[in-house]
């Protein structure tokens, strides 16, 4: 049941026919894992909290640096040297105290993910490197919960939604390791990409609209164009393929 305050707070979105009170209650009951409190994690967490997604479990190992502030809008100048999850918690609780913010300051590993994913409905990728993204992808497949991928560089970004066992996963496109590099970025790019991911998450939780499954949506901010590339499940994918896939193993 929604409280009187919640009916007022979410009035404008409850007015959306696809949401309504029943949808708002679904958002309230949801528990999501956000991996990363940086450029993508900032808009993702802010808009999840604003929308009333009940529990946000946020994990990030880093502290705030001055060079983060061009894009990581969860944090401010007064937060420099503080753990990102601490400033994030303050900001999000200040925005919506009815939302439960669970914060974890640790490095994401295959082992730590077991606990991090526990009882979450889905995983949102707000990371800055590929190896850890693949760990999230694998954990999502193993737990059979959706995975919402996003990545950026410069004015460019991309988004893909993975429904384990049903659609292509991030690893289906894996060609081998890529060098870890400091990437250029301006805040508007993760701002926009993070909010496309968040839109996908909200639609999934509500069971409405269509999702970016079997698709890699590419955004180019310089030409202001979106390109939708089709992606198919790769039968030889080492995460979800027929022989070695995590998802398949779970189905047996």
């Amino acid at each position, binding site marked *: 049941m929604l409280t009187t305050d919640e009916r007022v707070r979410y009035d404008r979105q409850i007015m959306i026919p696809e949401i309504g009170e029943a949808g708002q209650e679904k958002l309230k009951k949801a528990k999501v894992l956000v991996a990363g409190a940086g450029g*993508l994690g900032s808009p993702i967490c802010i808009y999840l909290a604003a929308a009333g997604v009940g529990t946000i479990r946020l994990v990030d190992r880093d502290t705030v640096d001055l060079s983060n502030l061009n894009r990581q809008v969860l944090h401010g100048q007064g937060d420099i040297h503080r753990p990102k999850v601490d400033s994030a918690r303050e900001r999000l609780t200040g925005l919506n105290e009815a939302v439960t913010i669970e914060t974890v300051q640790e490095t994401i590993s295959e082992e730590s993910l077991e606990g991090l994913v526990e009882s979450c409905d889905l995983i949102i990728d707000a990371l*800055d490197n590929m190896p850890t993204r693949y760990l999230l992808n694998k954990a999502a497949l193993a737990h059979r919960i959706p995975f919402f991928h996003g990545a*950026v560089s410069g004015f*460019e970004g991309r988004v893909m939604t993975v429904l384990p066992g049903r659609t292509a996963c991030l690893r289906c*496109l894996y060609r081998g390791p*890529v060098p*870890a590099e400091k990437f250029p970025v301006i805040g508007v790019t993760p701002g926009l990409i993070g909010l496309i991911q968040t839109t996908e998450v909200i639609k999934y939780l509500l069971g409405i609209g269509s999702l970016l499954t079997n698709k890699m949506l590419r955004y180019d901010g310089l030409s202001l164009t979106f390109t939708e*590339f*089709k992606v198919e499940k790769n039968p030889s994918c080492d995460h979800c393929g027929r022989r070695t896939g995590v998802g398949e193993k779970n189905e047996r």
Partner: protein
Amino acid sequence: MSAKIHLHKTLQSLTNGREIVEAAGNTVGDCLSHLVRQFPPLEEKLFDKKRKLLNTIEIYLNLQSAYPDELARPVKDGDDIHITLMLAGG
């Protein structure tokens, strides 16, 4: 056969600013070879020394992922080949 190759913007400095380059060939691999013959500096941006595509490169044929075995994919006249880069930032 002739395909239109759409180049990622980071590669366009090597094609005199051209975003789309026509290339001939029966497969994606043939078309990329023809592209590289027209603009030789692209070779090391696309391929390693064993002429395997770099891990950061993604190829889409008619807006569909061509992975795996991208280079062997047959090409028809007028096909579109997009060369994009994997993004890792966040």
